[in-house]
């Protein structure tokens, strides 16, 4: 196991280098070349901004020197200052991170709580009306754009029923609430974003669980479990489930890029102060240092997610865990 993790970590080195190199070239996509005078004419980038970028990334130096500088900054997690408010980019991201993280973790919990039992039930009842009905429903859900679902749910819960607030994280008078009221207030604000975020992957995960389960139910050891005299519940929830659920752990890691992308959309819809909305604002304001930081951090998070997925899978599956 230790050897396996070591090998996997070593494999990250070229990936990391590739990420830094690719993002480095992205910087050069910024409009205008410092040597060209017309820069000040470009409406998208003022001379002042250009000068600041030039200084930040050393654009007047040779390419290798620029890359070296970029690497140096990345190692120190120094992405420079935001063009908008001159605050440190890293600081801005870190203060927004908790919101995005907690929403995504909570929605992942909700997702698994719904998708796994659903997938199991569809597999166990394969070919019945229950299974067919869910197949159609999930196919529809799979085709629905998440932001549209969010809008429909906002319309229904927020306006038609008037039960839930439809934007922001807290009510305006949040500061005056008691401790319990604060929790309740947060929960009411987070309910829809978490639901929508979970819905986004519900179809995929429950279908995946279903097909894993159907395959597991056909395995020879299922006959053994029944031949022992175990009740059907034990056969399914002990002997089949453990096997069918193993690959699901990898989903947690592999869904990170999708979740990050999704965060941009629904944090914008629900006006939540997370890194997704921060990214959106950065794009609107052409805040290049902030954009670069988000892209690099997004890539590193994705890479880490893949690694965690592999290691988690190796850990839960004894066939890999005990291989030298």
């Amino acid at each position, binding site marked *: 196991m230790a050897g396996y993790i070591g090998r996997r970590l070593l494999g990250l080195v070229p990936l990391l280098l590739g990420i830094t190199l690719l993002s480095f070239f992205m910087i050069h996509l910024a409009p205008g070349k410092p040597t060209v005078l017309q820069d000040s004419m470009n409406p998208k980038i003022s001379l002042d901004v250009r000068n600041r970028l030039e200084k930040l990334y050393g654009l007047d130096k040779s390419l290798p020197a620029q890359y070296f500088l970029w690497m140096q900054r990345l190692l120190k997690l120094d992405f420079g200052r935001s063009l908008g408010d001159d605050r440190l980019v890293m600081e801005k991201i870190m203060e927004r991170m908790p919101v995005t993280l907690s929403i995504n973790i909570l929605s992942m919990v909700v997702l698994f709580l719904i998708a796994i039992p659903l997938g199991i039930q569809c597999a166990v009842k394969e070919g019945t009306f229950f299974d067919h009905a869910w197949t159609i429903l999930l196919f529809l859900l799979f085709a629905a754009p998440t932001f549209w679902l969010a809008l429909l749910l906002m319309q229904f819960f927020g306006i038609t029923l008037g039960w839930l607030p439809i934007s922001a994280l807290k009510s305006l008078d949040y500061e005056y609430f008691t401790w319990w009221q604060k929790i309740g207030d947060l929960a009411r604000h987070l309910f829809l974003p978490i639901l929508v975020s979970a819905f986004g992957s519900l179809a995929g995960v429950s279908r995946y669980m279903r097909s894993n389960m159907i395959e597991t139910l056909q*395995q*020879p*050891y299922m*006959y*053994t*479990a*029944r*031949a*022992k*005299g*175990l*009740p*059907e519940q034990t056969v399914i929830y002990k*002997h089949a489930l*453990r*096997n069918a659920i*193993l690959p699901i752990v990898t989903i947690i890691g592999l869904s990170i890029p999708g979740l990050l992308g999704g965060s941009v959309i629904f944090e914008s819809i629900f006006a939540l102060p997370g890194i997704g909305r921060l990214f959106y604002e950065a794009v609107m304001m052409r805040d290049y240092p902030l954009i670069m930081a988000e892209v690099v951090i997004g890539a590193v998070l994705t890479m880490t997610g893949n690694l965690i997925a592999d290691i988690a899978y190796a850990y839960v*599956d*004894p*066939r890999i865990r*005990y291989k030298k």
Partner: protein
Amino acid sequence: MDDLLKIRGLKINFYLGTQVITAVDGFDLDIGRGEVVVLAGESGSGKTVSALAITRILPRNARVVDGSIIFDGQDLLGLDIRQLRAIRGKDISYVFQEPSSYLNPVYTVGDQIMEAIRLHQNKTKQEAYAQTLKLLEAVKIADPARVAFSYPHQMSGGMNQRAFIAMSLASRPQLLIADEPTTALDVTIESEILQLLLTLKDTLGFSLLFITHNLTIARRIADRVAVMYQGKIVETAPVESIFTDPKHFHTKELISAYEQIGRI
């Protein structure tokens, strides 16, 4: 002879979409107490399905549609699923072809044996573990504790099959159904496992229904041989007379196949 198992007119259908395929029709078989019956036939003749049908652990799309299975005086086909579960693994046990894929890959061998023990016997975990070690010793496993804590993929096919036999015999069944238990193993291991089964049969006194396509094994272990062909039992005879006086042409085919192997 006092029959432990008496099967008459067994018929099994498979349902594939709108198609109905009759896999077994006209299956009659008797097994006496302490008797070893070999069920022989080419693959696809319905041997395995018939064996699974005895305790109704058939695939989802297969169903027994006719016949009777009298075991120890009661018709198993008339039992509800709860009564049947009390018999599975306790009075009737199975050993299958590929031990490594018939053991659950994510539980240790010990866990799987202990589960079988505690299901039919009122025992604590400690008692079940102690019995697991004894069972593993009984199937001639040298270091039972290590094997108990191993996962199936960590052991050889032969070791897995021994452990599987230990699990099947945990509750002292009256009938052991062994479905090609040695086909996936080396010849030397095969011989050891066969010897083990015969020894255990003598000490524990169970009846053995042994399924194989290989008549060499029949000659070595069987009291009686039943030959199956296209879903039917076509011939049943004591082991001595089946070789000297085969009646059905398929029996002759099987014997000539066996003689060819013998010549090589």
